[in-house]
C-alpha cells in the first residue's frame, strides 16, 4: 500500500509539472490515491463526473477558455465516451488527456472488464487517437512529451496505465 501511495504521488507530481490543473474523473481503485492528491491541491480543480462522456464535454469547454483538461477513468469509460471524442473533440480539434486505468488485462479479477480490455487499443486506433502505455514508474518521464503532443496536435491522447504501474 505504501508503494502504491508513492507512485500515485509521483504521477500527481508529473501531471503538475506538465502544467495540468483542470481534471475530471470517474474513480477506479487504482486511481483512488491520485484523485485524493488532486482533491487536496488548492491549485487544481477536480470535477467528479457522473459519466465519462460528461468529462469529455467539460474538458472541451475548458479548452475553449484555453485550459487543457485531463479525464481520469477506467477503459470502460472510454466506451462511454466514443461519440463525443469523435464528433466534438476530433471534429473541432480539441485536445484532452485521457488518463486511463487499463483494466481487463491478464490478472484481472473482474471478468466483465475483459471485453473492453481487449477492445481498448483497437477503439483508439479506429478513432486515430494516439495512445501511450504506462507500465513502470520510469514511463512517467515521457508524460510531459505526451501532454505536449496533445497541446501541439490539438487532439486527444490516451495514457493507458496498466495495473503493474501502480506496483
Amino acid at each position: 500500500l505504501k508503494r502504491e501511495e508513492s507512485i500515485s504521488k509521483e504521477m500527481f507530481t508529473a501531471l503538475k509539472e506538465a502544467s495540468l490543473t483542470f481534471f475530471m474523473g470517474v474513480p477506479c481503485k487504482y486511481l483512488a490515491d491520485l484523485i485524493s492528491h488532486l482533491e487536496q491541491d488548492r491549485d487544481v480543480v477536480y470535477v467528479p463526473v457522473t459519466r465519462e462522456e460528461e468529462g469529455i464535454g467539460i474538458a472541451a469547454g475548458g479548452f475553449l477558455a484555453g485550459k487543457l483538461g485531463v479525464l481520469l477513468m477506467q477503459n470502460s469509460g472510454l466506451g462511454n465516451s466514443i461519440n463525443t471524442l469523435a464528433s466534438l473533440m476530433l471534429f473541432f480539434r480539441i485536445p484532452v488527456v485521457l488518463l486511463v486505468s487499463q483494466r481487463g488485462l491478464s490478472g484481472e479479477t473482474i471478468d466483465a472488464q475483459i471485453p473492453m480490455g481487449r477492445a481498448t487499443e483497437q477503439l483508439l486506433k479506429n478513432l486515430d487517437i494516439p495512445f501511450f502505455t504506462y507500465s513502470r514508474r520510469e514511463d512517467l518521464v515521457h508524460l510531459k512529451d505526451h501532454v505536449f503532443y496533445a497541446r501541439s496536435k490539438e487532439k486527444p491522447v490516451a495514457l493507458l496505465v496498466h495495473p503493474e504501474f501502480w506496483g
Partner: protein
Amino acid sequence: MYRYDVLSLIDALLSDELVICNLGIPSQELYAIGDKPNYFYMLGSMGMVSSIALGLALNTEKTVVALDGDGSLLMNPGSLVTVAHQNPPNLKWIVIDNGSYGSTGNQPTYTRRKTSLSEMARAAGITDVYELHTKEALEVTLKDTITAKGLCFIVVKARAGNRSAKPVPLDPISIRNRFMEAEKAVNPGRE
C-alpha cells in the same frame, strides 16, 4: 411560442455572453437569427451542451449561456447533478422544452408526458429554477438573471416546430477559433 421565437428573444437580450448552442435545428435557427463569434454551434455530440458550458464557466470570468433542449438534456441528465455541485455563478442554463426531438421529425420526448425537467433540476440540487410559459415571463426572467450572479436553470416551454433553416455554413475550426478569440477578448489578463 416556438423554439425560433425563444431563440430570437434570447438573442435580442444577450450582449457579449458566451453561448454554447445545442446541435441541429437549434443551431441552424440561432445562426439564421443572428450569427456571432461568441456563439458556439455544437454540430455533433448530442447531450453535451451543458457539460461544455460547465467546463467553460469554470475557466472564464464571462457569463456563459447554455442553450439546451429537452431531448438533449435527457441524454445527459447526470449533468444536472454535476452542475448543481460545481455551482458556477456565471452559468445560465436555458432549456427550450418543446417535448420533441425537433431535429429528427418532432418525435415526442418523455417531457410531453410525465417528466418535469424543472423538478429534476431541483432534485439534483439546483436552487434557482424557473419554468416559463410566455414570452413576457421569459423576457423578465432573462433580464433579472443574465447579469446577476448565480447559477440558474430556466425551462422554457415551447411548441414543437422548426423554421426552415439551412445547415450552419461554418467549418468547425472557424467556429472554434473565433469563439476562443471572443472569450479571450474579455479576459485580456489571463494566461
